[in-house]
């Protein structure tokens, strides 16, 4: 029997000063609350169906295809354009002018007129315009060598070698997935009350999942064109091992800072889920087996985590050692505790690296869908409703809030060079966020407001020399330069996970940590930093394809499945497969 969450004594959430450090956020892994997984559960639960009514791809690999995703109330059309791209134009960066493939998710069943309209705009991406009937715009480039290799093998009637595929994990990678009103598309407000869109980035995740489908269909088609007589399709298991790549740079980094309430709601949901699990008074056999199975899967999936990045390689090595430790630890040791899941967590906190601790969080959540999956749909935030400053409070109130929530920022000497090495700016040439060196590059007078720690300290300084009883409203009239921070301080009082507790302009900053945190919430795996400010990831690897969704488990794909492990606890599971999802 599952414990009813409400009947349990609330368990304290991990405090912001522990969770919101950048090195920990940069060690987050996907969880069952991650958006990709939540989307899959929703599609399965509501018995969505999928079809591909339009497939007009020629022998050069050019043309258009449309996939329909049909839910209980609505249909969405994924429009896929394939192009014959000159290799010289292929770039991994968000900035480019041409791509191998371009995509739009259209609201409703698309008409030929709309396909025609999109064909003049979607291939141009930022240089084109969409209407509010479009929800997502994206593009992807081939992983050239692998794509060619797979076409070649399939054309000759052979399957590609799994190990070769595993080194990359995808045949194409997206360089941007735009939604929420970009380039004329629909604002999120327009669709946010739809059931299938509850929770963040639902439309974007649906689009990426359908991109993966297109890419696999496309590679099979190209093999068929190359050798119609001998070509074979991908073996379903090999096919499933292919995800969609993504390459993300600094453009994404400011997102978490610019959406403080959203950040809070994501972290709060994850922490609430962990607290609910830690509060459980016992471990039942099925859950235990489920946990052990995922631990084993996670351990084995590390073999497929390839990166050339030295720091990440070190972290993965440590994680491997952590998971070995965790596997070696007899679970019986925890069974005697009042709250055995909490006991595992606390053991992990003492024994494991940050990567290890955070993957343990993911693993602890894994068996507990019934208790926590509801949290996946409350991870959205209405930033507009929380925008207002309450100017009736006093200077002294704001000082105490700063002391309580921004202690991490107040003692830093921002005049010392190492603590303000960087400045964030938007590049005129690329219109993308960038990180500059204050000492070496011009433009720090055009700094973006991401230097939260420094600006909090400046606000604090000016508050201390004001009259304690002065209202915040009157203070801000005298000090309009503090308005942005004053708003954040008031927000953070209500939303403690709104702020990252680290200096975002100091020499120790690793922007990839910001990217990793966000991408883990998406549900990405195989983080492969290409520098300290650019990361490649894989999405939907091992997930079912649309045609498989009705007959497969929608929720056990985050780690590649392995043979059932040898269970170490004395309670042996009696059920069939412990990995069967229960939600």
């Amino acid at each position, binding site marked *: 029997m599952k414990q009813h969450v409400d009947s349990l004594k609330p368990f304290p959430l991990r405090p912001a000063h522990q969770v919101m450090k950048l090195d920990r956020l940069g060690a987050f892994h996907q969880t069952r609350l991650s958006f990709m997984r939540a989307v899959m559960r929703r599609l399965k639960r509501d018995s969505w169906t999928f079809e591909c009514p339009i497939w007009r791809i020629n022998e050069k690999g050019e043309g258009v295809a449309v996939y329909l995703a049909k839910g209980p109330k609505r249909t969405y059309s994924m429009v896929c354009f394939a192009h014959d791209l000159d*290799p010289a134009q292929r770039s*991994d960066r968000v900035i480019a002018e041409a791509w191998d493939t371009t995509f739009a998710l259209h609201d409703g069943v698309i008409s030929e007129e709309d396909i025609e309209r999109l064909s003049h705009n979607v291939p141009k991406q930022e240089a084109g315009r969409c209407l509010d009937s479009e929800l997502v715009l994206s593009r992807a480039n081939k992983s050239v060598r692998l794509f060619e290799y797979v076409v070649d093998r399939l054309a000759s009637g052979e399957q590609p070698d799994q190990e070769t595929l595993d080194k990359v994990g995808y045949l194409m990678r997206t360089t941007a997935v735009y939604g929420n009103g970009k380039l004329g598309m629909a604002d999120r407000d327009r669709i946010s009350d739809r059931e299938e869109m509850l929770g963040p980035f639902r439309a974007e995740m649906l689009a990426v999942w359908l991109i993966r489908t297109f890419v696999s269909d496309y590679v099979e088609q190209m093999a068929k064109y190359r050798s119609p007589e001998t070509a074979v399709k991908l073996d379903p298991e090999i096919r499933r091992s292919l995800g969609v790549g993504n390459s993300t740079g600094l453009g994404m980094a400011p997102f978490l800072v610019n959406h403080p309430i959203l950040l809070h709601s994501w972290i709060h949901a994850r922490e609430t889920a962990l607290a609910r699990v830690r509060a459980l008074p016992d471990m039942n056999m099925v859950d235990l087996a489920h946990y052990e199975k995922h631990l084993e899967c996670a351990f084995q999936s590390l073999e497929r985590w390839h990166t050339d990045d030295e720091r990440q390689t070190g972290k993965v090595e440590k994680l491997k050692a952590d998971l070995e430790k965790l596997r070696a630890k007899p679970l019986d040791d925890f069974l005697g505790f009042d709250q055995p899941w909490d006991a595992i967590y606390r053991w992990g906190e003492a024994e494991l690296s940050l990567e290890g601790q955070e993957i343990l969080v993911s693993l602890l959540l894994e068996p507990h869908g019934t208790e926590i999956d509801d949290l996946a749909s409350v991870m959205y935030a209405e930033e507009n409703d929380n*925008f207002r400053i*309450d*100017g009736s409070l006093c200077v002294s109130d704001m000082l105490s809030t700063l002391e309580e929530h921004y202690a991490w920022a107040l003692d830093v000497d921002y005049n010392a060079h190492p603590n303000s090495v960087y400045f964030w700016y938007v590049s*005129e040439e690329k219109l993308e966020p960038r*990180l500059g060196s204050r000492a070496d590059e011009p433009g720090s007078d055009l700094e973006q407001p991401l230097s939260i720690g420094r600006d909090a300290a400046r606000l604090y300084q000016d508050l201390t020399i004001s009259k304690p009883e002065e209202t915040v409203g009157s203070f801000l*009239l005298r000090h309009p330069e503090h308005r942005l921070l004053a708003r954040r301080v008031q927000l953070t009082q209500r939303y403690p996970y709104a702020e990252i507790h680290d200096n975002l302009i100091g020499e120790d900053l690793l922007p990839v940590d910001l990217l990793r945190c966000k991408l883990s919430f998406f549900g990405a795996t195989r983080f492969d930093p290409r520098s300290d*400010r650019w990361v490649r990831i894989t999405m939907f690897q091992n997930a079912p394809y649309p045609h498989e969704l009705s007959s497969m488990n929608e929720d056990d794909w985050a780690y590649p499945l392995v043979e059932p492990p040898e269970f170490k606890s004395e309670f042996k599971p009696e059920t069939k497969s412990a990995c069967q999802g229960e939600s």
Partner: protein
Amino acid sequence: MDHYSLNEIEASARKAARGAGMTWGLAEEAGKATRWLAARGLPNVSTLLTLLSENDGKDYDSLCPQNLSQNWSASGGVLCPVIAGSTLNDLAHNIVLGQEIKLEAVNCPALILPILGRASKALGHGFRISWEGVVINILPDTLYLETGTIEDLGTTFTSEVVVDGLSSDSGNVSGLNIERVVKGVPLNNQDWCHLQTFAARTYVPASEESRLLGAGAGLTDND
């Protein structure tokens, strides 16, 4: 005439306001205000552009209320509605308690409405705002244009704006109910380009070093 999303309008308006010299916190107010007006089919980007052009090059100190007595005026002669509106919001509790505030000489007064709209929602209390030929009642979830037309809201200058609280009984409130609708907003190309010109002032020109280092990439993608 292209259509723009509310997010595009807000993001560009925020950058443009910053580009025209507002602090980031006030620029956020300007961005949200422009979005709010656009979502209700009221004059939006064009109004902001008039304001930014008027304020361009002027000091904050010449545009803000000189003191917080009942009559607010700017040392430069004309109040900025984003600054004055933000201050009205910050002190909205006083208006709720019955204080009437007069703003002497204000540019583009419609930009005050969104800021008070948000205050109304947060406080659960209504406000009445009026200027020559226009009376508007702002309730927590509704906007009523009691006197004047939507075009009147696009006025670029008025000699006096009066703001006071409405009693919590909204039964007496009447006028044209202006509703919020989320859909693409038509904007003329000239206004959009003008907005981008202000926004572009927040961008840093590229240098060879920044091209190489700024994004941290630079590796080939043909692998």
